[in-house]
C-alpha cells in the first residue's frame, strides 16, 4: 500500500518507478528494508517502461565496446534468475535475423557484381553476425539456410537469402515485471509514493542530504536517479549532471491475437546494414507477444517534447511499408492498437551509470534507452557495487521473502482450476472483459494489490482489461464501476491514467458549453 504521508527519512530514495528504479529497489531490499521509491505518475511503470517492445535482446544489436552492449549481454544471461519468484512470464522465443537483398545498402550492393553480392549475402553476412556475437560473448547463435528460414517462419518474404537464429533472445511483459518488482520490494519493506514529484535534490558540502517533493522532504544519505527521460534534469538538481537527454520517440503496432497467433513463432527481424556507419541498425522486428499478439515496430523519431507519445499517420505508414517487404501478407486489417514511448538517449548514445563526484551519495542511472529492459538485471548488479560502497549493508537479510505471489489469471487456467476459484469466490465466474476473458475478481484483486491499481489503465496493465480487439468498448464502464466500488469513491472520480484524464462528467445532465 502507498502510505499516506512521506517518511522523514530513508536509507535510500529511488527517484523513478520504471523498470530501472524498481529493479534496483527490489535488489536493495535484500539488504535493507529502508527504501523509498518515488514517482510522479499515478502508477509504477507509467512512463517509458509501459510503452516499449518487451524484448530481452541478446545484445546482438549493440556496438562492441559500449556499456550498453556489455550490460545487455550480461542482463540477458541473468534474466531467468531475475524474474524467478516474481510470478511474471519470461519466454526465450529466439530471434530470427533474416538476410535479404536489402541487407546491404544500395550504393554498396551496386558496386558488386551480382555473383559477388549473392555470395556476400549468403556466405559472408551470416558469418559476420556469428563473429559479432562471438566477440560479445553471446552464446548459441546458429546459421539458418533459406529453406530453414521458411520452415521456421513461413510468412517471411520469398526474397530472403539466409538467416541467423539467436536463441537467447526473449520477451517479458515490462509493466507486469515492474509492478511485480515494486510489489516484491514493498513486501520486503520498501515504500512506494506515487503522484509525488521530486523538485529538488538537497546537497550540502558535497554530500546528498535528501530530496524535496511536492509532498514534502525526505532525508536520505543515498539517492538513486532513475528518472528516465528526465534523468538529466534530476541530475542537474543535484549538480551531478552535465549530460543531456534528447528524447527519441518510438511507435509500435499491435494486432488482434485471434488473427495473428502463430503468425510468427520467434521474433523476426530483417538485417540491414546502415549506409555510412555500417553499424547494425536494429530496425525493430515482428514479434509475437507473450499473449500471442503480433507486434510490429518500433520507429525512431527525434522529438523535443519529453511527453510526446503521439503517433502520426506517417509513422503508422512507415511501419506498414517496412514490414510489407519482410512479411508481405501480414494482416494489416487486424491492427487493434498503436502506442509510442520515449527513449532516453544521451549525446553519447550510451548508459550513464555511476556515483556522482559532486554530490556524494547521488547515483545516476541515466541514458537508459533501449536495451534498458534487457539490461535491467546487469544494471542492478553494477549499481549495487556503488551502493554497497556508499553504505548499503553487504550482509543479505535473513528475513527477505523471495516469492511475490501473482494473482490468478482466469484466462490462463484449466477448467478445473477455474471451478475451484469460482467455488471460493463467485466473482471469478463473472467475466467482465470479453476479449481477454478477465473476471470481476481479477479487477478486485488489482484494486487491492500490494501496489493497488487506482486508474483504468492501472487495472488494464494488471489484468489486460481493454487490451483486446474491442479496446475497452465493452468493459470500460464495468471496470470503472468495480474499481470505484472497491476504492469507495463515486464512479465519476475514475480516471484513465491519473489527474486530468477523467472518464465521466460529474452528474448526468450537464449544462451546454
Amino acid at each position, binding site marked *: 500500500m502507498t502510505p499516506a504521508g512521506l517518511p522523514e527519512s530513508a536509507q535510500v530514495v529511488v527517484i523513478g518507478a520504471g523498470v530501472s528504479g524498481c529493479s534496483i529497489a527490489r535488489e536493495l531490499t535484500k539488504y535493507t528494508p529502508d527504501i523509498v521509491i518515488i514517482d510522479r505518475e499515478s502508477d509504477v511503470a507509467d512512463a517509458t517502461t509501459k510503452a516499449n517492445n518487451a524484448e530481452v535482446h541478446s545484445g546482438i544489436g549493440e556496438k562492441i565496446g559500449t556499456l550498453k552492449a556489455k550490460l545487455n549481454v550480461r542482463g540477458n544471461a541473468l534474466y531467468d534468475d531475475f524474474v524467478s519468484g516474481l510470478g511474471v512470464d519470461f519466454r526465450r522465443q529466439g530471434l530470427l535475423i533474416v538476410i535479404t537483398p536489402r541487407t546491404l545498402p544500395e550504393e554498396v550492393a551496386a558496386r558488386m557484381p551480382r555473383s559477388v553480392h549473392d555470395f556476400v549475402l549468403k556466405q559472408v553476412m551470416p558469418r559476420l553476425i556469428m563473429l559479432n556475437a562471438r566477440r560479445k560473448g553471446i552464446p548459441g547463435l546458429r546459421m539458418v539456410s533459406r529453406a530453414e528460414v521458411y520452415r521456421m517462419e513461413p510468412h517471411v518474404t520469398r526474397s530472403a537469402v539466409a538467416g541467423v537464429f539467436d536463441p537467447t533472445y526473449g520477451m517479458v511483459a515490462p509493466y507486469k515485471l515492474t509492478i511485480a518488482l515494486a510489489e516484491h520490494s514493498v513486501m520486503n519493506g520498501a515504500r512506494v509514493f506515487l503522484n509525488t514529484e521530486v523538485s529538488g535534490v538537497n546537497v550540502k558540502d558535497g554530500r546528498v542530504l535528501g530530496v524535496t517533493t511536492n509532498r514534502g522532504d525526505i532525508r536520505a544519505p543515498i539517492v538513486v536517479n532513475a528518472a528516465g527521460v528526465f534523468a538529466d534534469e534530476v541530475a542537474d538538481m543535484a549538480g551531478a549532471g552535465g549530460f543531456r537527454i534528447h528524447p527519441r520517440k518510438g511507435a509500435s503496432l499491435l494486432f488482434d491475437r*485471434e488473427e495473428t497467433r502463430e503468425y510468427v513463432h520467434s521474433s523476426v527481424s530483417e538485417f540491414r546494414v546502415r549506409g555510412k556507419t555500417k553499424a547494425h541498425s536494429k530496425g525493430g522486428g515482428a514479434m509475437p507477444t507473450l499473449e500471442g499478439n503480433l507486434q510490429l515496430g518500433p520507429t525512431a523519431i527525434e522529438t523535443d517534447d519529453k*511527453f510526446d*507519445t*503521439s*503517433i*502520426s*499517420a506517417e*509513422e*503508422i505508414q512507415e511501419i506498414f511499408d517496412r514490414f510489407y517487404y519482410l512479411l508481405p501478407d501480414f494482416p494489416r*486489417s487486424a*491492427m*487493434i*492498437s*498503436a*502506442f509510442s514511448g520515449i527513449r532516453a538517449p544521451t549525446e553519447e548514445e550510451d548508459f550513464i551509470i555511476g556515483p556522482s563526484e559532486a554530490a556524494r551519495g547521488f547515483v545516476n542511472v541515466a541514458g537508459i534507452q533501449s536495451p534498458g529492459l534487457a539490461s535491467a538485471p546487469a544494471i542492478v548488479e553494477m549499481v549495487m557495487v556503488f551502493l554497497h560502497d556508499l553504505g548499503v549493508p553487504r550482509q543479505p537479510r535473513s528475513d527477505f521473502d523471495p516469492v511475490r505471489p501473482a494473482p490468478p489469471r482466469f484466462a490462463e487456467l484449466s*477448467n478445473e482450476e*477455474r*471451478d475451484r476459484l*469460482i*467455488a471460493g469466490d*463467485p*466473482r*471469478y*465466474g*463473472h*467475466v467482465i472483459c*470479453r476479449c481477454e*476473458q478477465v473476471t470481476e475478481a481479477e479487477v478486485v484483486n488489482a484494486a487491492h494489490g500490494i501496489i493497488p491499481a487506482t486508474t*483504468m489503465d492501472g487495472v488494464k496493465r494488471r489484468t489486460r482489461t481493454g487490451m483486446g*480487439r*474491442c*479496446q*475497452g*468498448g*465493452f468493459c*470500460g*464502464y464495468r471496470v470503472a*464501476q468495480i474499481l470505484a466500488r472497491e476504492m469507495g469513491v463515486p*464512479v*465519476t472520480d475514475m*480516471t*484513465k*491514467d*491519473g*489527474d*486530468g*484524464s*477523467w*472518464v*465521466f*462528467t460529474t*452528474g*448526468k*445532465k*450537464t*449544462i*451546454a*458549453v
Partner: protein
Amino acid sequence: MKKTRKPQLAVIGAGPAGLGAALAASGAGLRDVMLIERDFELGGILPQCIHDGFGSIVFKEVMTGPEYAQRFVEEIRRTDVEIMLNTMVLDMGPDMRITAVNDREGIVEIEPESIVLAMGCRERTRHQVMLPGFRPAGVITAGAAQRDINIEGLMPGRKIVILGSGDIGLIMARRFTLEGARVEGVYELMDHPGGITRNVVQCLRDFEIPLHLSHTVSFIHGRKRVEAVTVAEVDADLKPRKETERFVPCDTLCLSVGLIPENELSKHAGIQLDPVTAGPFVDERMETTVDGIFACGNVVNVFDLVDYVTHSAQVAGRGAAEYVLQGRKRQSPVKVVAGRNVKYVVPQFVSDLNRDVDFYFRVEHPERAVTARILADGKPLAGKKHKMVRPPEMLKQTTEALDVSTGEKTRELTVEVIPGGE
C-alpha cells in the same frame, strides 16, 4: 465431476436474434432449448436503444428498442426455453462442445445436438480506422457512449465531435444534445451519409448539428483528456488534405465507424467466414459450413433493421429444429453470386431449392430508378423496382420454391441491381 449438459439446441446470445431463434425452435417442436446470455438481462443491444424506429415490419408499429425486446422476452417466458443469464460462452470446438461460465455453476460444459450463433457484433475502434494522435481519455465508440448514458446514467463528455455518420452516430448526436452536451459536428469520410435519411433529418437537421461530408479526423490532441481534434477534408483516395486542416476544440471524440460481426467463437468451431460480411457463410436455413451450427442476426452480417434480424432468426431456429427432429441432410449447395451493383448477398449458398428463400443484400453505390432481381443461371426469377437504393439500406427479396418454378436443376444464382425502375 459435473454433468455435461446435452440440450437439443443451444442458442448463444439473447439479443433479438437469439430470442427469435429460441422461440422459433421451440415453436417448431424442440423441447430442450438453452438460451445463453452473458449480460444480466435479455435483449442484447436493444435495451440501450431507447429511440424509436423498431418493429415496423414485424409488428407493423413503431416502437423503441426496449419495447421491441420486451415482446420477445414476454413470449419466451411462456415457453420452456431454459434461460441462462450472466453466462458467458468461453469457447466452442469443432465437435460442437461449448464451454461456458457463470458465478453459480462455475464452468458449464454443453454438448448440444444443434447450435444457433447469435452473438451480434462489436464496434470498430479508433485504431482499426487508424486515427493518429495521442491516446487520451475521451475517445469512445458510439455504442459504448449509448450504454453509458442510457443504461448506466453516466455522461462520457460535454463537448463532442462525432466521426462517422452511421445510424448509431446520428442517434448519439441527438442523444448527447438532449442530455445537455454540445455536439460540434458530425464528420463523415464518404461523400454521402452512412445512416438512413430519416436519421439525418431527425437527429442532425432538427437540432442544427452540422454534417461535414468527405471529412475525417486527422489528429487527436490532449495528453490526459481529449482537448481537440484536427479535422480535414479528404481527397479522392480518402486521405486528409493538409491545407484543409482545422483545429476543433472538444473533450470527446465519439466514433461511429462501423460494426464487425463477433465471430471469434465461430472461428474456433472451424466455421468458414465470408471475408466481405465478416460473418459465417450460410445457406437458406442460416446453416453455417458446419452441419448443425446455424447463425442469425448481426453475427452473420450487419443488418440495419432489427426486423430483418428477427426474420433471419426465425429461419435459423426452424432450421435447427428441422435438423434435430428430422436429421435433415444437406443437398449440394448452389452458389449465390453478387452481380452488378451488389456488394454482398446473404445467404451465400442455397442447398434446398424447393422452398422459399429470403435474400438480403446491399448495393455498392447509390443509384436511382433500378430493378433488383434474382437470376437462376441467367433467367430472371423475381424482381422489384426501387426509386432509390443506397448502401446503408439493406434490400430484401424473396423467391419462391425455385426449382419448382424453373423446373430444372439450377447451377448458379445471381443477385443484381440494374438500371430501369420507377
